């Protein structure tokens, strides 16, 4: 049933945005060495990564599914 929402195109978009996310986390940590903002530990980085993926999949899959019901 989920297959109609988790399409190959959606998964491709997810991989592309995940790549951007990893780059953002790296850039942020490099920036945190220069200006006073809080540095992300690898665990916090992983939390953010998982959280954003959950939100993205939630937006694309769970909400249409709930709407349909």
């Amino acid at each position, binding site marked *: 049933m989920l297959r109609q929402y988790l399409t190959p195109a959606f998964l491709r978009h997810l991989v592309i945005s995940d790549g951007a996310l990893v780059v953002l*986390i790296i850039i942020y940590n490099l920036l945190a060495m220069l200006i006073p*903002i809080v*540095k992300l530990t690898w665990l916090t980085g992983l939390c953010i990564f998982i959280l954003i993926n959950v939100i993205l999949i939630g937006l694309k899959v769970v909400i249409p599914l709930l709407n349909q019901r």
Partner: protein
Amino acid sequence: MNNKQKQFILLTTAMFAVIVLIFNIHAYVDSSRFISGASRPSQVLNVNRLRHPNINKPSEHRHYLDLSKQGQLRLIMVPGLNRLYVLSGQRVVYIMHTRTNIQRRALTSQGHHGQQVAHVNSDHTLAGRNWSALSHQCYIIAPATVDQDHVAKDWLKTAFAFPNSIQLSQPDAQWLQSLPKNTKIIIR
């Protein structure tokens, strides 16, 4: 890259910014990460410059400052965080990884220092480098060997203990030898 992919990246960036903002606000408001009596931005700045504890390297990714040029110099040791803060007035100028077995008290630097010292107790022979004397028969030292074995890189986790000492990495201990006489060191 098509429009949908661009939208996805934009969405990710926006969400990253929002979540990072939440993490930053949470970390900034959480007072257990900070010491009182020092500005928080300077603490965040120096914590971000910390490297992993290494007995042979300075604690921060930067050059040491000239301690004699700092006004209102004082040091605050927080055993719970394993950190020694060097303050100039209300501003933290350097943070060091450190370990101590001295109980909560205020010490002052005595102005004399040396290269090597050894401590022998019933079980072990400990050798240290770059020591500086403090009041109450306490001292700052860089641990070097235990029973003629070199101290592990992360000396904070090793099981030996110099009595009445603040244990730092070797470059940090060498730098603190230039601490002006009668500088306050508070152990919280």
